[in-house]
């Protein structure tokens, strides 16, 4: 009966994995459009605050480091589930989620600081483009954290074993993608003056 549920596919790839890769392809266009708009608008603001007045490279470097390191934890979580190590899976899934939460904490701090410095989503086009872009990225990280915590809970209950490693792998694809997007955002928005 199990064979009837999952007949072999034409490529040998699992449907879920292939579908998810397609979704990621689509997401690149989504973030591509958001990032392009930011690049067009970053110098277009007619009133301050301007990007160089508020963007804090040292602080964001720390949160970037945490987020990118969480990708390592994600790889280790996948490795653990493939080895069948429940404790390892749980540990690394939680570590990844905590990395994401720290990143979100930094983002909350950054947004609050900017608002105190007079930059809201309504202040100027830089503010609009910045908050919508990083806000959507943050929303993606939040979804990822919920996803990872759900997988961690299932692992703790013993419902994710070696045969379910694909579930962790797909969550990992998502997590790495969200990280890669952040590398682009960090480079283009923060590092390039």
């Amino acid at each position, binding site marked *: *009966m199990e064979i*009837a*549920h999952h*007949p072999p*596919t*034409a*490529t040998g*790839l699992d*449907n879920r994995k*292939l*579908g998810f890769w*397609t*979704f990621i*392809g*689509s*997401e690149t*266009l*989504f973030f591509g*459009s*958001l990032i392009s*708009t930011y690049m*067009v*608008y970053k110098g*277009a*603001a*007619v*009133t301050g605050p301007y990007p160089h007045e508020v963007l804090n490279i040292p602080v964001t470097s720390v949160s970037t480091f945490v987020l990118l390191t969480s990708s390592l934890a994600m790889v280790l979580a996948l490795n653990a589930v493939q080895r069948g190590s429940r404790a390892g899976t749980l540990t690394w899934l939680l570590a990844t989620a905590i990395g994401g939460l720290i990143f979100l904490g930094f983002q909350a701090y950054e947004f609050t600081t900017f608002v105190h410095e007079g930059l809201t*989503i*309504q202040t*100027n*086009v830089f*503010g*609009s*483009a910045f908050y*919508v872009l990083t806000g*959507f990225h943050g929303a993606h990280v939040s979804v990822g954290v919920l996803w990872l915590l*759900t997988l961690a809970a299932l692992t703790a209950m013993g419902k994710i074993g070696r045969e379910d490693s694909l579930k962790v792998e797909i969550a990992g694809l998502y997590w790495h993608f969200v990280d890669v997007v952040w590398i682009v955002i960090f480079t283009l928005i923060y590092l390039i003056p």
Partner: protein
Amino acid sequence: MADAIASERGPQRAHAEGHGAAALYTDPGGLWATIRGWITTVDHKRIGIMYASAALFFLLVGGLEALLIRVQLAVPENDFIGAETYNQLFTMHGTTMIFLVAMPLAVAFFNYIVPLQIGARDVAFPRLNALSFWVFLFGGLFLNSSWLFGAAPNTSWVGYANLTSVQYSPGLNVDFWVIGLSIVGISSLIGAINFITTIINLRAPGLTLMRMPLFTWMTFVTSWILATAIPVIAVALIFLAADRFFATNFFVPGAGGDPVLWQHLFWIFGHPEVYILILPSFGIISEVVPTFSRKPLFGYPIVVYAGILIGFIGWGVWSHHMFTTGLGPIADSFFVASTMIIAIPTGVKIFNWLATMWGGALRFTTAMLFAIGLVAIFTIGGLSGIMHASAPVDLQQHDSYFVVAHFHYTIVGGAVTGLFAGFYYWYPKVTGRLMSETLGKWHFWTFIVGFNLTFFPQHFVGLFGMPRRVFTYPAELGLGGWNMASTIGAFIFGVSTLIFVWNLIRSARRGTPAAANPWDAPTLEWSVPSPPPHYNFAEIPEVESRDPLWKGAAAGPDRAVATGGDEPHMPSPSAWPILTALGISLTWILLMARIWWVPLIGLAVTAVCVYSWAFQPAFRAES
């Protein structure tokens, strides 16, 4: 059950076996059970039928809007409807016909036909498929509910900034538009991902890419265009929604925002959208023409490559919609060149269809007539397209009725004509009965007369200087006669559409019963009974050629109907897709409250539904 296998050739036998349309499309337990069955269905065939039904409903709505527009324009200085109503009518006519009629009708065929053509039992993600449909339906209904508030969108289907800003459009009209389109877009994206996965992964053994039927190929290309173009319009709509609901400055010139950014984002989606509309119909007639010419498609690989090329180049032509924006000579030259280049693969296809018919044993069924109609009418639309591919010419024709004539020749003469061909061609597969050929020919000829009488004069009207999107015109312009001709044509076109709808309804009960392969067509969907059992193929076929039913081991309808206990196990129905669709729609609709946390209610509903969905097994024991 050798009998069941043999029975495939005779319609009466198929019905005697209990596989008639009535048995397939109702559920045991009465009306309520049937309604519940459809609401919770994950069967690609039922979802396809629902897509087609909803789209045909919207077709009648959009058609009525068109007729009201034409009555207003029939004579100069008419006061039948005022300017405000006129603005709402042409905006909703365009938005409805593109997003709620042409696209979902194509998706209806994707749904019903593609799994059958590739020898699969369903799509890759049956529940996501249901979600896709319900999100589309809710988005479409929400968009049209604006009529009830007297606040239908009124800024045209392209919704140019900054006319759509709160400052210039303070009412609810644009709110309905931006929210409705966002919801419908989500549906298209989910569907695209589903069909890409389905076509790559669920092909029957031996069905290599270069053996795939052309309709499946064009579905594949269209799905890629959707998967890449929808996120761009999504971003544009998010900016517009943010401007309207959260007072951001994306399209506020005073704050440094650039309204031209909207045009770029919109057309980066909007031009690929044109190919999203036309390629499925190119696919359909690439099935119909060979079948009724009794010849394999001429130059199959070239037709495939041309389709892929159109998909790629379609991404590099968007600014030909913006020549009047003033992008400068370098940008204009680039887009002139790319636009002329894209005509080449399109023209190649025209010649392939002609060469397929050349020397064939032609049968002029209604499906074939519509396919030939596409080749003829679309070519006229293509030629006028080449004219305003040239920037200087476009500067004269932009925003005139010439452009209206052009795109109706491509979208109605191309996309819709192909979809009509698809209806006549595949109707017997879906219902087990043929559509009436007599009514079909009435439909075809009234369509040809009505369509051309409506839109051909508009070329002249446009060249004589009548601008589009204006609710009336002075008598001194001297265009009353041409416009009256257009209006008469529109009513003939309307009658023709009613004949079509009547044919659809009537033939479901009174049409001639159809065998598994009534047209002697070559592709796999014709190897299963009409209508197909809910699992499609009892045994997955093996494919050895491009025309498996014309040659090779799989020739002839030979896919056995499973007997009682041996039926393949199919995914179970689920209520979560429709509930999730409600949650997604609610999230967007609640933006209209203009309180930042209210949409979070919809988001919470969506989250609950998504979790319930994820923990519900796709296959459950029958209760």
